[in-house]
Every structure is written in C-alpha cells, then in structure tokens.
C-alpha cells in the first residue's frame, strides 16, 4: 500500500463505546476524592515538574478518566511526590494518593 502513498490511519477520536473504564473505576474506589475534580488546573499550575517537562498531572488524570492509558506509566515516573498539588486543590482531591494509586493500578493490570 505504501507504494502508492496510501496508509490506513487509526482513528484518533475517543471511542466511548469501546473504551474500558475498569482501571478508572479501580482508581475511584481507592481515591474517592478524585470524583470531585472539576478540571480547574491548579494541580498542574503549581506543579514543579510541569514547569520544565511535559509532565502534566491534569492531563494524566484526564486521560485516566477517559480510559486512555498509553504511555501514562512513563509519565507518572516524573512526579516527585512533593504534594503541592494536594495543597492547592480547591476540591480537596488527594492528588498524591491519586498518583501513587495510578502507578500501582497500571502496574497491577499490565
């Protein structure tokens, strides 16, 4: 096919019919405060790692929420667990625990 300059691309849309939210639901069981997140971005705004790297905790937990887990384990290694995100969160989400649990769930369900 490539010979003719054609290729079949995988769709990049979020397919909510096919996605499995099993790991996301595990996360909610372990960190119930995460249910309250309203996506204000305080966590990644205050994040020290975010200022210099691609690490974005808000993006990571949004991906988790949407059942997109690819590459997240690598991303999550960049967090230094300083806990500033937990301090600023206006909805009282325990972000430190969220990060540790995301790491663990991704590891358990490899």
């Amino acid at each position, binding site marked *: 096919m490539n010979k003719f300059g054609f290729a079949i691309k995988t769709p990049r849309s979020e397919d909510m019919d096919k996605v499995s939210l099993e790991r996301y639901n595990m996360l909610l069981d372990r960190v119930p405060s995460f249910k309250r997140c309203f996506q204000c971005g305080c966590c990644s705004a205050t994040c020290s790692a975010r200022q210099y790297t691609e690490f974005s905790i808000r993006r990571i937990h949004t991906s988790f929420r949407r059942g997109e887990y690819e590459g997240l384990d690598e991303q999550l290694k960049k967090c230094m667990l300083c806990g500033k995100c937990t301090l600023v*969160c206006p909805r009282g989400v325990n972000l430190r625990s969220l990060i540790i649990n995301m790491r663990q769930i991704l590891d358990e369900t490899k």
Partner: protein
Amino acid sequence: MRKVAIIGAGPAGIEAASTLAKNGIEVTLFEKSETPLKNIQDKAFLFPNFQAAQEIADDLSGKLLTDGITTAFGVDIADIKWQGTEWKLIDAKNQTYVADAVLVATGYQVFDAHRKEELGYGIYKGVITSLDMEQMIKHGKILNANGDEPKRVTFLQCVGSRDEKSGNHYCSKICCVTAVKQAIEVRKQLPKCEASIFYMDLRMWGQGFEEMYRTAQEKYGVSFVRGRISEAAATFDGRVQLKSEDTLMGLPLKMTTDLLVLMVGMEASCGTKELGKACDISGDYGFIKSVNPHLYDNETGKPGLFVAGTCKRPMSVSDSINDARSAAIAIKDYLDTLPQ
C-alpha cells in the same frame, strides 16, 4: 395593630418594611450599624444595566419614610425569644422589644481574602479584592500599587467559593457576572489597559448576563482564560506574577499583572450566624435555612419567624428585593391567621 420587627436594614429589610407598612402593619426596622444599606453603598454600579448603586440606595432609603415604619439604627439585636404568643427581642444593651412576627434579614459579608494566603492579599499591594475594585471604579481611580495607571488588570473567580480549602463548597452566584461587569468598567475607564478573567465555569444565569459576557468579548476585548490561579507572587517593580494552567491548551501559564482582583464570595454575616444559632434556624455554612426552597422559602419552621435575602444564600440585589416582597406576603398571611 399588628407589630412586626425586621432585623437588618439592607435591601431586603427595607423592601419588606415598606411593603408591610403600606399594608397597615406597624414595623420596627432594626439595624446594627448607624446607617442602613452599607453593603450596597460599597458598590459602584449594579449588573446588568450598570445602574448606579447609589440610585438604588436612594430609592430604598426613600421607602423608609413610609408611614408606619420606625427605624432603630445602631441597635444590635443579640437574641430573640418566642413567648408563646409573641416574640421578644433583646438587644446588646439588654433592652427588650415585642413583636407579633419577626423577619430576619441580616444579610451577608464578603469572604475574607486573607484566608487564601497563596494569593497574597494583604501581602502584595497589587492584589486587591472585588470590593476594593468596586471602590476604585466608583471613584474613577483605578490605580496599581505604585499609584500609576495599570496596563493590565486580571480577575480571578471563585475566591472563597467552590473551595474546599476555605470550607465553602457552594457557588456565590454573583461573582462571575461581577467580574465581567468590572472588566467592562476597567476597559471603559482605561481603554489602553488589558483585562483578563481567569475562570473555571462562567455562570451567566440571569437575564442580560450572557449578553454582558458577549459585549465584554466583542466590544471591550476582555480575554477569558479557563484555569484557576494557584498562586501569586510579587515582582521587584511592584507588580504581581501569577501562576495558572491554561486548561484548554493544557499548558502552564504565567503572567505578570498590575492588579490581581480576587472575586471574593458571599458568606453569611456574623449577625446571621449568631442569630441563626440562637434561634436554631441555622443551615449549611451558617446561612439561615428556610422550610422549603420551592414552597415555603420565607418560613423558618418557627411560628411568626420569617427570613428574607442574603442571610439565606448568595443572592443579587434584585433577587433580595423580590424575596423580601414575598416574605412580606407570607408575614401578612400569618398575621391574618392570629386571633383578634
């Protein structure tokens, strides 16, 4: 003649007093301060029609002259007690008053921005509250920390509202539209100054509010950033540097601004909290709880004890006035059921 005591001379208290007095009921209006309408007189213009707050205050003050209203300003009602057939009101100096019914209209106070230390209010001069901004607009003197004309003014929504860390889970309802109103005012008074609003959701719930938002975008070029400011710091030249995430871009954002305006929310006033506790009618966050928000929103569940205005929940001035009128009807209905 039936007697009603109203506690609090804000828009709700005064409106209810004049409605009742016009219906032949004798009203005593108590107010802790020496003058009425303090909160409304802190404002410059009211949304959505940019009417001068002073005009509304003057109109309401005029209603105090209605026959049948006695004013008792500078009287702090500390406690009220049901005596079986009537209410006894006791002030801070231990003087007592008697009434067939009581209307609690003790209002709100703004959130104390010092409590959000990370935003630097009271630490950096360039950080002010929406109330400070209202004063600047009122006097036509919008100035930065150095006393110069600002080049950029930035508003932050939800300070002390929708915030678990300050203990207020609720939305204060009026700050979204107030920020839009103030940003328009800034652009009107200082056409060269940029205005930005940091928001999480813009709740344009009232008639004309969405149109104001459109006007702010189209006519006044106000910029809107979807993200909450997590912290502010001072720069060497007396400006304020703030940190947020632009959640739509998914990128961290930093910005230096001359003035950071914190849109402080509404909390139950001290008087509301104390009286609510004393009469056992306190609900969430120290606001007074009505019996039913749909059907009996002015009743407290105690005989002859009614409630109106922002001591119940955050409300706009117009909502408070309407609520006061409905309270007046509820009080009249109650008085009519009493034995002659």
